[in-house]
């Protein structure tokens, strides 16, 4: 662990990204405390405050309904980040499972699963996501967060492929090594070999892929919400804010600027972080770079 951190420290942009991301996550976690500290409201429409310039306590001004933009951003960050995190986690799990099974058993199962993966990689993701988002998946969840759950399911459905391929590639390398043969000769079951022998050794690329996936997921979430198909009110994310702000671009461009800026910063940070983690977790790459 310490070794990894030491290697990671060399990637300056990665460290900065980690720092910025922790601030963003902290802001999102403590959104309600910050809101009560500032004494503003992220969802209450106050007609006196419409379209205010940035000032104290409205750090970034207010929107067309008099809601405070800064607190809306950090509340929106809660939704955006949690959707992206949960979707990346789930797609990592799904992808790892598929990759493990395909790589370990090989043969027909491998061919079937990998053809399916290839087919999924070939389809135009965003248009299909739109179709899925337009479907009435009411059975999935009820209540305010129904749209959030639906969105996570959709993103996972289209997001597991890269992890599956990486996992399969690592398994193919690992399954012929001595320690797997040793475990098998000791009578370990397939599941045990996969879970406790192969998986820990294949984890590094999966973690990197999942980190990069978080960034992509934020973009997908924002794109769908921007098209009006993602997060539905009362929940609001950066994409939804952007969607609302488009109508007011002429009069108050800052409304559209901030959510997109936050998306940009967050996604860049996840990409830098993923890059840094790749360098830290994959010693071959580092050696090559040093050479």
């Amino acid at each position, binding site marked *: 662990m310490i070794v990894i951190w030491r290697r990671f420290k060399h990637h300056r*942009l990665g460290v900065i990204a980690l720092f910025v991301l922790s601030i963003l996550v902290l802001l999102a976690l403590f959104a309600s405390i910050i809101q009560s500290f500032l004494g503003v409201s992220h969802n209450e429409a106050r007609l006196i405050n419409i379209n205010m310039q940035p000032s104290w306590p409205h750090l970034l001004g207010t929107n067309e309904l008099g809601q405070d933009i800064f607190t809306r951003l950090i509340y929106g960050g809660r939704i955006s980040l949690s959707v992206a995190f949960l979707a990346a986690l789930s797609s990592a799990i799904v992808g790892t499972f598929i990759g493990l099974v395909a790589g370990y058993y090989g043969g027909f199962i491998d061919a079937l699963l990998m053809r399916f993966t290839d087919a999924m990689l070939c389809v*135009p*993701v*965003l248009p299909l996501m*739109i179709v899925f988002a*337009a479907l009435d998946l009411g059975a999935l969840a009820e209540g305010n967060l129904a749209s959030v759950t639906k969105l996570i399911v959709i993103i996972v459905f289209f997001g597991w492929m890269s992890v599956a391929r990486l996992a399969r590639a690592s398994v193919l390398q690992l399954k012929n090594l001595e320690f797997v043969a040793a475990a098998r000769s000791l009578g370990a079951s397939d599941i045990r070999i996969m879970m406790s022998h192969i998986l820990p050794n294949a984890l590094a690329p999966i973690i990197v892929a999942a980190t990069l996936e978080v960034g992509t997921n934020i973009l997908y979430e924002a794109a769908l919400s921007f098209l009006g198909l993602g997060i539905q009110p009362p929940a609001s994310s950066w994409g939804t804010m*952007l969607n609302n702000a488009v109508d007011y*671009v002429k009069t108050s461009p800052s409304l559209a600027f901030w959510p997109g800026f936050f998306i940009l910063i967050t996604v860049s940070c996840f990409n830098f972080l993923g*890059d840094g983690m790749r360098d830290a977790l994959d010693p071959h790459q580092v050696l090559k770079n040093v*050479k």
Partner: protein
Amino acid sequence: MIYIIKRIFSMFIILAILSIALFALLTAMPGNPLDMLITSNPNIKPEDIARLKKLRGLNQPWYVQYGRWLWGFAQPAYAPVVINIPIQNKNTRINLSDFIYDPNFIPTQQELALWLDLVWPRWQESLEAARLQAYIHDRKSNALLLVLADHDPVMHREFKNLIRKESFKNLELTALFGGHIFGDFLEINSEEAYFVIRNSYGQQKVGYVTTKDSLRKNILHPINTQISENIGEKFEFNINKFINNNYNQNLYFELLENSPGILSADGIYQHTFTHNGQSAISFLVRDQHQHEQRLAFDIEHGVVAHHEKFNYGFIFFFAGKRDALGFSETYQRPVYDLLFGPEIICGDGRIDPGESCDIGQEPRHNCTSNCFLKTQSILSKINTSIGGFIYRSGRIGNTIQLMLPALILSLFVAIPLGILSAYRHSSVLDYIINFFAFVGISLPVFWFGIMIIYLFAERWLLFPAGGIQTPGISHAGAQYILWDRLQYAILPTLVLSIFYIGRWLRYMRASMLEVLPQDYIRTARAKGLSEKSVVLKHGFRNALIPVVTILAISVPSLFGGALLTETVFSWPGIGRLQYEAVMNNDYYVALVVFLISAVLVIIGNLIADIIYVMIDPRMRKL
């Protein structure tokens, strides 16, 4: 070779599975294609809905619908016969202001409201007051015009004249050849005429009219019926049934020369056809205000056997039968026309490239699922100029016009930068390039588009904010259309290429980094080759192989980027069509667009395989 055949064969299987899955998904979406029709018409009765549903097979389960669609799709046929209807004689007077649109003229909100008060004093009490208000607010004079046209052609004309007068103050007209100027009118005395318009600022434009153009202007609302009639029997047909006579005006009909048969003044057409084929009947309709309109319809009689030669290329062969791809309920056009076809002719004869008409602008005729706008094919014959080619390129053409320059531009930027960045690995330059590449891949395209629109179109007024060309510019001539479309294309191309640059740069850099420490590079250096030769010939060529793979694989994501860019810039391309089709439950359009992008992806992979062989001699042995 066998490999390629195998690939193409497997492509069909994939496409079949994909289309079934997609169709099932699309039909599972709430709503159906008729919804648009029903919601836009408050007077529609439940039995009408049931009838329409039955007509379109929507009452069947989805797999039956899919089978019907597939059957229609699988029927190969050639492009339909196009008949040029000679209804115009050479000595024609043409009101020039009908042909020229001043793109710089946008009336203010107050002016629009005042004008509307003039022609329609009680417009604020009308059902459409909200929509009209919205158009005034957005200063959409064209849309306003067409709403008016929906109500009353007289009102429409008045309003149009008011606007025109304002915009064509102090115009100086000169005829170059082919005609004479009388006031605002140009009298053409040959096939085509050229003229010059000069405004008070000294700007001038050369205009061009042909009598065929006036033909286009006059067939505003073509009636397209496919009536099969037996030869030798007396054929009788009431035209009134096919005309949208909203105000129950008394209409008078008159058959034009070159049309066979007899047409009585109250609209009963009679004729006995003696041969196989198709006839175009053109006639004049006059209302009590003596406003005239030329209309036309086609009649198929007997067995229509002759087909025009096939001239559209391979992919069109499958789509050769224009209704084989299905019919779009939202746009009231065959999907084929929507994708490949020339533009739609809107209510006032204005042509929109690949774009649907605004509400109230729909070509007003009773469309059945068999109906298509035949005059458009006539148009496509007329417009053989470059401008004509571009502006009738259809949705797919529009997307290619956006994507291809963006792709080329981004490759031209990304590949050299990627090589440079990898060559000067770990230098400050590398860090900077890498940083910007990361920002590029993290950039939300839609947000960037909005910001660019705000800066360049709203703030600095350098480029138009959205759309593909100035409405009405198609009357101006090829060179103007080119220039006009270029202005519209710059911003979306820029946004899209920034979306691409980051990705290609990353891939190129990573790939070069893999290659540069290889032994053969060291050998090349040791041989004493120049750095340029080492990097470009030995390094770059080997680094290109994975990049080509990724280029091929990422075709689908290119579509995603194009979808967002097109939506933000209201570019009438295939991505936006896809989005709109899904939103409007327009199954056939959505399905066809999906399949087209899937085909492109598979072809992209195939091309990548072929390029491999070209750039990597090792592959040739396999």
